[in-house]
């Protein structure tokens, strides 16, 4: 039986792990290679790097970070942020990433998903979806940190991403993200109900119970958290011990 995965996510800018504080300031919290190695040591099932670098030079720095991480971290590594072309996919995978995640570039150019899946295989194509509730019900796809509404139904987009060859969906709720009030169970169930590929739950976790809830109440395959782990409010071993106690299969 497949274990449910716990995935720490690291935001990386110019080769440093950073964390935004309410969109105002961005604070450096460390070296991504060291942070990733620490999470691996603690039993993280996968590591996600989200490159929030805006500049071209910064992209080279990110690839260097991936190369160095791949020498020390022996669990799957997913890299996303700013991936726009097949060449970006290739460079990132060659640097040592196991999976590449695409977000707004896939919304704007869905063929990127099918091309990448054909060339590199579905297993390394993760489609990240940022979803937000519509006032009239349902969920819409947003990009640029929630600032731009793409006017696309998030559940339909997840289905389309799967049919184009996505291997996994990384689903972030912009309604619960940062609230620490729990994952967006309604959104997760809406998406898990229409796709067969694994869905990674993201946004909103704040307590141990939030992790058991998401696996008890939805079909999510994995749960992702960023600041919760960075600021050591909870650790990966604590989360896994809690899930094990609740009889949820985890790798310990």
């Amino acid at each position, binding site marked *: 039986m*497949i*274990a449910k995965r716990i995935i720490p996510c690291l935001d990386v800018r110019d080769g440093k792990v950073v964390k935004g504080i309410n969109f105002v300031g961005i604070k450096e919290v460390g070296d991504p290679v060291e942070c990733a190695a620490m999470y691996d040591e603690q039993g993280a099932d996968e590591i996600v790097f989200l490159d929030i670098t805006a500049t071209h030079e910064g992209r080279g720095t990110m690839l260097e970070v991936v190369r160095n991480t791949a*020498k020390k971290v*022996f669990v799957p590594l997913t890299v996303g942020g700013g991936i726009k072309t097949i060449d970006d996919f290739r460079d990132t995978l060659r640097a040592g990433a196991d999976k590449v995640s695409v977000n707004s570039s896939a919304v704007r150019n869905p063929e990127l998903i099918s091309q990448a899946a054909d060339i590199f295989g579905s297993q390394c194509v993760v489609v990240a979806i940022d979803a937000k509730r519509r006032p009239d019900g349902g969920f819409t796809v947003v990009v640029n940190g929630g600032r731009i509404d793409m006017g696309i139904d998030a559940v339909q987009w997840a289905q389309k991403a799967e049919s184009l060859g996505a291997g*996994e969906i990384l689903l972030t709720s912009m309604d619960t993200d940062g609230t620490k009030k729990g994952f967006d169970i309604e959104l997760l169930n809406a998406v898990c109900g229409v796709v067969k590929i694994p869905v990674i739950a993201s946004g909103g976790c704040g307590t141990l119970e939030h992790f058991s809830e998401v696996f008890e109440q939805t079909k999510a395959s994995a749960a992702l958290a960023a600041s919760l782990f960075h600021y050591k409010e909870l650790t990966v071993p604590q989360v896994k011990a809690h899930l094990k106690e609740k009889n949820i*299969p985890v790798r310990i």
Partner: protein
Amino acid sequence: MIAIIDYGAGNIFSVKNALDFIGLENILTDKKSDIENADGIILPGVGAFPSAMNMLKEKDLIKTIREQAYQKPFLGICLGMQLIFEKGFEFEETEGLSLIEGTVEKMEPKDLSIPHIGWNKLEILNPCPLTNGLSENEYVYFVHSYKAVCRDEYISAYCEYGEKVPALVFKGNIFGAQFHPEKSGKTGLKILKNFGEML
């Protein structure tokens, strides 16, 4: 010295990174002489069975691998494990390296998605040198859509995914891991270290 056979398939650097990390000398190579001179051989691989066999054929490595595999520890990883069987049925029937009797067939688990991706638990059936020191609760990382079909005596460990899926196979000094030891955290590194112990 371990020869990691580089025949143009998949991310071979992760295997090299893992061996470097645990201090096992290795070389990425497609040269017959390196394979002949090595103390052990690793055949990695991500991709499809027919194209992988084709690439080995184009590099004229099939005969060398068959001869050398019987003389020193040999480990096939993921697709590299599948290639050690007699026949594969991915897209079309393709002859494999025939180092262990068996075939490679499409997985068809009920109500479960394919590919089988993720951390799954190793259930040890027949202990082998690679399972030395492993506990009863070890998870390893899988990414595959096809599985080996072979006699139980060749299965060292399997995992449950709607059916029993051979995870670690062996015959004499020939080993095959369906999972990726280089991506399976401490458990994977332990298995690679065990391989190093045999050299």
